[in-house]
């Protein structure tokens, strides 16, 4: 059992989302930084579909009733466990009664807590994810509150690495922007003149209505640094920048939209749809953020910047394959750690 001592501004139970119900207008939901959740679950020996806690703003405090293992992934929230600083992307043993405190992000936006056995809420439509809009899933369909108690599932204990008293170990965090460094324009290399972070580049495929926009709008779409307005949430990132004008065109009939779809309402300010977005829409779709870069977007802060880098279908596929390769590397590293640990235990027993 996990006691929520301080819930923070927006903490929700999330897994990898629900599938198969979009035709009934049920959003996919799920962790916005799904890669962080995937790694977190691996670090505590969970199945990939186990649920964790997505934390958006600190400070957050959680107390663990029983000895277990946890991992914090995503962006660094400056965590301490029983008063001692702990690293993100590490598998950590927790003693009964330990309190985990997360101050909040200095950069990035979201952190994930995974616990051995997973957060055990009742699955709804095949997922434990909280659908805040519809009010189901997760803990009573809502964000966590101070004083909530989260049940924890039964942990897989057959592997030495994940025993509650096994030593801590870490893995390499995913690379943020390796693709962008290569073709980064010279004026963006080095430090920002005002000491600000550069806009985060995310790769985008042209959308079905890309050609409906004026040449100026198309140019601005690729060259602007878009501000992520504070009005952004798990449904969508509302951006602010050049007003994107459409040429004279026909109104669109309602069509499906997906996480990553960049739609442009009549005010000309693009919205990137996220996990909790509605399933259909009628605004022109100027582009789509590729699947492999959605987690990067999810880590862009409110009032942060984002820019769109045009990519190809082949590159999008390669990026996703790279992400899978990274996860397999993590699996291999954990398996190796496990073997070493088991060998050491055997040697100690023999002696």
């Amino acid at each position, binding site marked *: 059992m996990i006691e929520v001592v301080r819930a923070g501004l927006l903490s929700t139970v999330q897994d990898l989302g629900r599938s198969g119900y979009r035709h009934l207008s049920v959003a996919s939901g799920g962790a916005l930084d799904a890669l962080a959740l995937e790694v977190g679950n691996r670090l505590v020996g969970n199945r990939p579909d186990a649920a964790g806690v997505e934390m958006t703003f600190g400070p957050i405090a959680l107390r663990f009733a029983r000895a277990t293992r946890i991992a914090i992934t995503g962006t660094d929230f400056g965590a301490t466990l029983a008063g001692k600083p702990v690293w993100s992307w590490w598998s950590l043993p927790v003693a009964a009664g330990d309190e985990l405190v997360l101050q909040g992000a200095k950069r990035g936006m979201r952190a994930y807590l995974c616990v051995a056995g997973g957060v055990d809420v009742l699955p709804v439509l095949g997922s434990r994810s909280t*659908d805040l809009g519809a009010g189901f899933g997760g803990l009573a369909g809502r964000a966590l509150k101070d004083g909530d108690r989260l049940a924890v599932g039964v942990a897989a204990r057959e592997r030495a690495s994940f025993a509650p008293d096994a030593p801590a170990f870490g893995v390499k965090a995913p690379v943020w922007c390796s693709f962008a460094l290569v073709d980064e324009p010279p004026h963006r290399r080095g430090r920002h003149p005002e000491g600000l972070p550069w806009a985060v580049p995310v790769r985008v495929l042209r959308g079905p209505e890309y050609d409906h926009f004026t040449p100026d709008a198309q140019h601005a779409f690729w060259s602007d640094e878009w501000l992520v307005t504070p009005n952004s949430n798990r449904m969508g990132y509302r951006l602010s920048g050049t007003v994107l004008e459409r040429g004279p065109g026909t109104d669109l009939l309602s069509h499906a939209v997906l996480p990553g779809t960049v739609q442009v309402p009549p005010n000309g300010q693009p919205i990137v749809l996220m996990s909790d977005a509605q399933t259909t*829409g009628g605004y022109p779709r100027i582009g789509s953020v590729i699947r492999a870069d959605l987690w990067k977007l999810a880590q862009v802060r409110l009032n942060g910047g984002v820019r769109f880098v045009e990519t190809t279908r082949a590159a999008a596929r390669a990026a*996703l394959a790279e992400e899978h390769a990274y996860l397999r590397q993590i699996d291999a590293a954990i398996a190796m750690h496990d073997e070493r640990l088991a060998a050491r235990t055997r040697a100690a027993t023999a002696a």
Partner: protein
Amino acid sequence: MSISPVRIYPLGDEALVCESPPPATLDVQHRVWAVAALARDWPPVREVVPGMNNLTITFDPLSADPDALAAQLAHAWQHADDAPIAGRDVDVPVEYGGAFGPDLEAVAAHAKLTPQQVVERHAAGRYIVFFDGFQPGFAYMGGLDASLHTPRRKEPRVAVPAGSVGIGGEQTGIYPAASPGGWQLIGRTQLALFDPSRQPPALLLPGDRVRFTIAGVHA
């Protein structure tokens, strides 16, 4: 019957859209539902989402071959004639007017009818669910009598009760959950439009034929 032309194009890196150009017609929509029913059984397909005159399928970009899927979609579109007509008949009992339908008078005034005439025409209609959207279990329905077309409210309500039956422009629909909304509310049903513990969770599915029955009329 000639087969409506179709355009198949990608949406992002994990979806394909199959779309017939406007105008939206019931014939095209029947084809959309038939292709959707087929595509749901294709192994690499994850989601099949009908829209208006179009449907979108999603897939795992690493294991699926989008070109092969596009060809499969095109083939299914051409050969969807023999598919059985999708959909079920669903009766929705409605308490019209009073606290259940606070805008019934406004709709009547706009239509230059009495509230009772609005109720009778609304309940006489035969509606068809084109697709679901907006919120879980919300059905976009066609078939509203032209005399009942009413513009949306100038000031949307902050909270519309679940089960409210409304008119927005040329459409009529039912709010599955309490939410903000701008449609003119003419009544309310006790039926649960969406219940995640039920299978399927939505009462109204794409292709369903809907009839509103008069459970009561209130002043």
